[in-house]
């Protein structure tokens, strides 16, 4: 903070789902992601803007219920508060839920930071018949109190003015709130405080010492760790915590929490009054829940809505996806016309544009899908859906919130991985991300149709159904394995606030869509372009290899041939060009890699051609069929392969190998786009883990198919 340059850093803090992000947006006139769903802001969001000559840096901290260091959000909020970067805090309180909201406030106030209080969603509170004595609240909380309705922007100008007024006062610290706890607790606090003062002479004032003493006695792991130099302080804290809880029969934390809620109760009974007797039984939320959470209707209704969501997404998305496809080919034609023949042109056309085009086609689906997700999240239905399904998902070590991303995986794993953001616990979220690639996305289907058609003609429908069952089975099994052995400690608890139903604002829903689309496009622009270029390079190089025949001369000879009819010439030419392309593929780095890697797949019965298809499938799953078409020298005009390709394939391998191949293609690896999404949502390490894990899963299950299949036949 500086009064000369008139700059101030303001932190917004409050419970999840208290409308904090909407306040942030209204204040900064910006938009950040919001939802009627606890925990949406995970990273710290910042915006800078001007008001009355002041430059205000507004920081939206993740929603928290307390300042302990248990979840990622709590740690992020806390680290920011302790870092000393923040000059002023705005504590956003859900006015209709004041008693709970004030628990966090008591922890904030003990820190002694200048704080402003916002009674948000005042409209909802008024409908409940609540009214607030702002002056009393203000004097008891020792800071200005402003009423707002962030949905409609009511009270925001007053809030901005209050921020500036507070900034002009230039207070670094204010008198911290002093809650008087149980007399035994107070004695313990005093003793610890005395010791802290001796250990940190001149570093902290009396209030800060008291704050630290309270935190240590509350058993704050991180602060206790920070005092590791002072063993006798740690020892004293430990002993006092033990003595107090033995003496009172309550844990130390509970005693402090009781003190805090005692203070809150006093404050609320003095400053808040409820004029009408609010009949909770006739409240809209309860009526809707009686339907949506109904014992027998709740789950069918949920599946109905899921069906509606996917049906709409895929039928409505088809049209714009088609436009994008033709747009991409238009651009590709235009760029092709502009550039001279040569490597650079090939790189642009076959590498960059084709690669980006293949992914950008998903954009409409992502927009529509996230429109629904945003709508469900804004209304409060998303929280209900996880409540409905938690029991079923818990069996597999998954959280109720993991269901929607899993189902989305059948469409495309990329938005599905992005949708796991709604899961609060980092461990549960990671499991949901890592099992998602096992869900068979739509792009894998053409390869299954091709192989099933070639080998299991009369029962190919059954084969594909079995593949989908395997997909679900492996995803669930993987979740059990991961939650038991790899990523433990998540999802043991499902303590969640059930927010009231709210009408979503269009702006928030549209923003949510835009944000996801932006993330997606940014991803396409990064990893995907690099990946496409690499794959292109592997296919196109080395150039000018020694081919078995001089195709160009042969082509020229056929072209000038007098003895052939024009039809025969065309036939000969396509034939020659295909043979040439096949041999080039075989001799390219990709082909060589296929040859080199194929011994790994020998036990599964895959040859180098399968290996090449598998490798190309890493780039994008839909490429698998096209690769087979090139490798088997057949026309790839049809998506699922021509009759000729099916025949060629059926001669090349046994049905057992084909079954193993299907299983392997289902499981073996996230595609490049999904890999990039996992990297974005988790880390390089976990993306790598996902690759290795799914390869291992795919290989072992395909091997199992081979073993069992050989026994049976």
């Amino acid at each position, binding site marked *: 903070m500086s009064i000369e340059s008139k700059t101030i850093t303001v932190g917004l803090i409050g419970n999840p789902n208290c409308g904090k992000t909407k306040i942030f947006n209204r204040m900064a006139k910006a938009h950040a992601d919001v939802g009627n769903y606890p925990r949406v802001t995970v990273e710290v969001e910042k915006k800078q803007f001007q008001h009355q000559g002041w430059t205000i840096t507004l920081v939206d901290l993740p929603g928290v*219920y307390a300042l302990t260091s248990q979840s990622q959000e709590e740690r992020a909020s806390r680290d920011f508060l302790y870092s000393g970067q923040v000059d002023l805090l705005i504590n956003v309180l859900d006015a209709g839920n004041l008693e709970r909201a004030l628990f966090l406030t008591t922890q904030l106030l003990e820190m002694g930071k200048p704080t402003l209080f916002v009674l948000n969603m005042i409209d909802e509170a008024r409908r409940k018949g609540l009214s607030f004595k702002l002056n009393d609240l203000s004097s008891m909380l020792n800071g200005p109190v402003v009423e707002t309705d962030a949905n409609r922007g009511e009270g925001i100008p007053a809030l901005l003015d209050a921020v500036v007024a507070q900034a002009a006062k230039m207070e670094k610290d204010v008198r911290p709130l002093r809650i008087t706890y149980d007399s035994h607790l107070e004695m313990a606090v005093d003793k610890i405080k005395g010791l802290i003062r001796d250990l940190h002479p001149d570093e902290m004032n009396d209030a800060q010492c008291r704050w630290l003493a309270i935190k240590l006695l509350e058993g704050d792991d991180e602060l206790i760790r920070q005092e590791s130099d002072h063993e006798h302080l740690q020892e004293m804290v430990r002993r006092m915590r033990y003595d107090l809880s033995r003496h009172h029969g309550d*844990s130390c934390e*509970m005693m402090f929490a009781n003190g805090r809620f005692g203070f809150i109760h006093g404050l609320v009974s003095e400053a808040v009054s409820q004029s009408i007797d609010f009949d909770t039984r006739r409240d809209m939320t309860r009526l809707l829940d009686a339907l949506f959470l109904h014992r027998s209707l709740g789950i069918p209704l949920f599946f109905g809505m899921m069906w509606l969501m996917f049906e709409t997404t895929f039928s409505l998305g088809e049209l714009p996806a088609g436009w994008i496809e033709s747009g991409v080919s238009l651009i590709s034609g235009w760029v092709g016309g502009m550039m001279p023949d040569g490597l650079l042109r090939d790189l642009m056309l076959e590498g960059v544009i084709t690669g980006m085009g293949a992914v950008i086609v998903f954009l409409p689906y992502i927009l529509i899908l996230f429109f629904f997700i945003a709508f469900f999240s804004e209304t409060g239905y998303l929280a209900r859906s996880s409540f409905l399904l938690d029991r079923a998902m818990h069996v597999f070590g998954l959280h109720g919130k993991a269901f929607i991303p899993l189902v989305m995986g059948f469409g495309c794993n990329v938005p599905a991985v992005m949708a796991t953001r709604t899961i609060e616990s980092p461990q549960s979220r990671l499991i949901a991300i890592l099992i998602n690639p096992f869900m068979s996305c739509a792009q894998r289907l053409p390869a299954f149709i091709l192989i099933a058609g070639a080998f299991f003609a009369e029962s190919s429908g059954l084969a594909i159904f079995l593949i989908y069952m395997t997909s679900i089975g492996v995803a669930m099994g993987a979740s059990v394995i991961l939650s038991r052995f790899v990523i433990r400690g998540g999802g043991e608890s499902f303590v969640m606030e059930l927010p009231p139903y709210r009408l979503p604002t269009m702006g928030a829903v549209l923003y949510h869509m835009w944000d996801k689309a932006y993330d997606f496009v940014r991803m396409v622009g990064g990893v995907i372009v690099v990946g496409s270029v690499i794959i292109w390079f592997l296919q196109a190089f080395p150039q000018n290899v020694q081919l078995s025949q001089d195709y160009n001369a042969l082509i020229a000879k056929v072209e000038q041939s007098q003895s052939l009819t024009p039809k025969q010439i065309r036939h000969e030419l396509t034939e020659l060009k295909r043979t040439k392309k096949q041999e080039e593929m075989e001799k390219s780095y990709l082909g060589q890699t296929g040859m080199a890697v194929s011994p790994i797949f020998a036990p599964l019965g895959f040859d180098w051609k399968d290996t090449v298809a598998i490798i190309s499938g890493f780039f994008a799953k839909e490429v698998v069929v096209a690769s087979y078409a090139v490798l088997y020298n057949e026309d790839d005009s049809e998506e699922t392969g021509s009759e000729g390709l099916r025949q060629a394939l059926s001669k090349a391998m046994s049905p057992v190998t084909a079954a193993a191949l299907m299983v392997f293609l289902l499981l073996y690896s996230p595609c490049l786009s999904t890999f990039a999404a996992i990297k974005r949502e988790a880390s390089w390490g976990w993306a790598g883990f996902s690759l290795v894990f799914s390869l291992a899963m795919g290989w072992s299950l395909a091997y199992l198919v081979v073993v069992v299949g050989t026994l049976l036949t």
Partner: protein
Amino acid sequence: MGKKLKFKKKTLADLKKGESGRVVKLHGDAVSQRRLMALGVVKGKSIVLEDKAPLGDPCICTILGYRLTLRNSDAKNIVITSP
């Protein structure tokens, strides 16, 4: 065996739909205890079991005038008074 049952404390998980009680004590690990306290589940507060999910778990309860969902395993850790 019989003795053990006799001294078993009543918990939130023992309540039927619509019944209520006052919080007496929390069990379980420190992390979940702190989480519950931050949400207002502290000694002396009245808690009502509103409903259970169609599959029997989790449940919804009302505390401090708002609604909270908990798994039965969490509810078992909340000891309440007998009415």
